[in-house]
């Protein structure tokens, strides 16, 4: 991937692209510190959606009429943008799905059911989101394979010294890991894991849902086999996401969803499957959403993924410094240099729900809960944490308001 010099981004200026910030919440400007769960949408993406519906909409790959051709060109153009964004060798390796969760389920079912059995080992990590944990646990049970997780150290980083022991459990067939942890922000050594997976004869499945919005991704450099991500966390519409997979693996796999559009021919006796990527795109796809996903990729590329990452790291360093003064603050996660713009924390003696409630009264939105990471929460010995997360539109004033709100919560409830 070409590395270009990054200009610093101006979050205050970019913020004007996001209509959501024009309103007040409980009489205060919105401080949105929950982009890890979903990002807000810039006008450029919203305009594209509206314009597509108003001028170019029809079902794709179905009609010979002009409008269907225009819609198909837009849809396939979006596929090319999304494929280029992760440096996929070919656009046909990029499957549109309903999101990262469906992308991972696609691999777990369509690859897993036919390739796993007793004696095989499926390896995840204690850091996974349930979406890259539960499908593998379930498919391992269905096929009789062993399911295991790479443990974490006290900073929330993977204990790679355990790999040898895991290899003793049987034939390692799948290694599944997130590139960036949604709960702690840990940037994981996926390249090293992919190399190890391939030494074992396993496939490497990467959950990039939390990485894609903030961190440059190159599937060829990672040398992974599958990579899943979602549009909604990176300025795009909900209900659309992507699965990139190596063509030879996707071609050898059985289909996942079956129905219209994914076939070559259908008869009473037999059905044969269509080519990539259509084999995995049964039924009418989220067409406008995919086009909006393409517009979101344009927006993120215009801002610059390197500039976004740099901006978030500056905010992270600033926030960690300020939060250290909050009474009872307990932070989780690795040092800033190995971490994306996510801060998971607790205030001693105060339940995260109460912290989030107190903050909401002042228009500050953070996440409170287990972040779909119950195995990780068990490891940390907590039921839930608070999580503040940043994006390209986050400004330091929002962090100041977070800190003020935490002082208030401590005064009231601790």
């Amino acid at each position, binding site marked *: 991937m070409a590395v270009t010099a990054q200009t610093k981004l101006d979050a205050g200026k970019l913020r004007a692209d996001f209509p959501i910030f024009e309103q007040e919440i409980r009489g205060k400007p919105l401080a949105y510190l929950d982009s890890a769960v979903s990002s807000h949408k810039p006008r450029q993406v919203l305009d594209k959606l509206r314009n597509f519906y108003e001028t170019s909409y029809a079902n794709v790959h179905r009609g010979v009429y002009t409008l269907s051709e225009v819609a198909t060109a837009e849809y396939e153009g979006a596929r090319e943008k999304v494929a280029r964004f992760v440096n996929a060798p070919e656009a046909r390796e990029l499957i549109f799905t309903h999101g990262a969760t469906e992308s991972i389920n696609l691999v777990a079912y369509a690859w897993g059911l036919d390739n796993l059995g007793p004696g095989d080992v499926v390896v995840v990590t204690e850091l996974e989101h349930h979406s890259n944990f539960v499908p593998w646990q379930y498919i391992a049970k269905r096929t009789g394979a062993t399911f295991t997780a790479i443990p974490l150290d006290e900073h929330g980083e993977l204990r790679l010294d355990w790999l040898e022991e895991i290899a003793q459990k049987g034939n390692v067939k799948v290694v599944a890991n997130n590139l960036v942890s949604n709960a702690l922000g840990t940037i994981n050594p996926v390249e090293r894991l992919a190399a190890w997976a391939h030494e074992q004869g396993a496939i490497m499945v990467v959950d990039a849902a939390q990485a894609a919005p903030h961190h440059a991704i190159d599937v060829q450099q990672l040398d992974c086999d599958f990579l899943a991500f979602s549009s909604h966390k990176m300025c795009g519409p909900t209900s659309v996401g992507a699965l990139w997979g190596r063509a030879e693996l996707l071609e050898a796999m059985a289909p996942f969803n079956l129905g219209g559009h994914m076939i070559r021919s259908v008869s009473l006796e037999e059905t044969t499957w269509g080519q990539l990527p259509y084999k995995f795109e049964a039924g009418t796809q989220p067409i406008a959403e995919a086009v909006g996903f393409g517009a979101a990729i344009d927006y993120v590329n215009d801002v610059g993924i390197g500039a976004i990452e740099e901006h978030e790291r500056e905010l992270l360093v600033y926030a960690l410094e300020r939060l250290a003064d909050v009474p009872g603050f307990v932070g989780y996660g690795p040092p800033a240099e190995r971490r994306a713009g996510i801060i998971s924390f607790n205030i001693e003696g105060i*339940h*995260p*729900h*109460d912290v989030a409630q107190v903050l909401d009264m002042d228009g500050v939105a953070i996440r409170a809960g287990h972040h779909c990471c119950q195995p990780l*929460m068990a490891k940390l010995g907590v039921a*839930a944490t608070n999580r503040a997360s940043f994006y390209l539109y986050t400004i330091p004033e929002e962090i100041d308001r977070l800190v003020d709100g935490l002082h208030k919560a401590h005064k*009231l409830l601790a």
Partner: protein
Amino acid sequence: MSEFDQMYREVILDHYKNPRGHGELDDADAQAEGQNPLCGDEVSIFVAFGEDGDTIDEVKFSGRGCAISQAATSMLMEMVQGRSAVEVASLPREELLDELGIPLSPVRLKCALLGLSTLKLALHKAKGTPLPEEWAGAAGDLDLK
């Protein structure tokens, strides 16, 4: 009074900081555990019946949770002490919510009602009273020994 002051009003904070009936009963006649899947909170409820086998003689709770769930469960402990198990099994949720007396969003409603639905589950297991609606469809996952 602002919405904020209402939510964390004095009586809520008092129950949160000094919960009534907090603890466990070693030889409980009825017992159940409940979870809030949204936040991972857990509560355990322990009930001891009087000689008639129906009056709730003693009731305790343990577990972790937010101020709303802890305060609501604490209030519940006071509310059901000395009442009939059969009556409590069909206690309208409004009775507890009125006692709490604060505006609750759907998410926070689950926090407030975790203790009550777990108490009803304990009574269901011990007495065969109707399974509370919160547990409908989950019977297969429940340990109903």
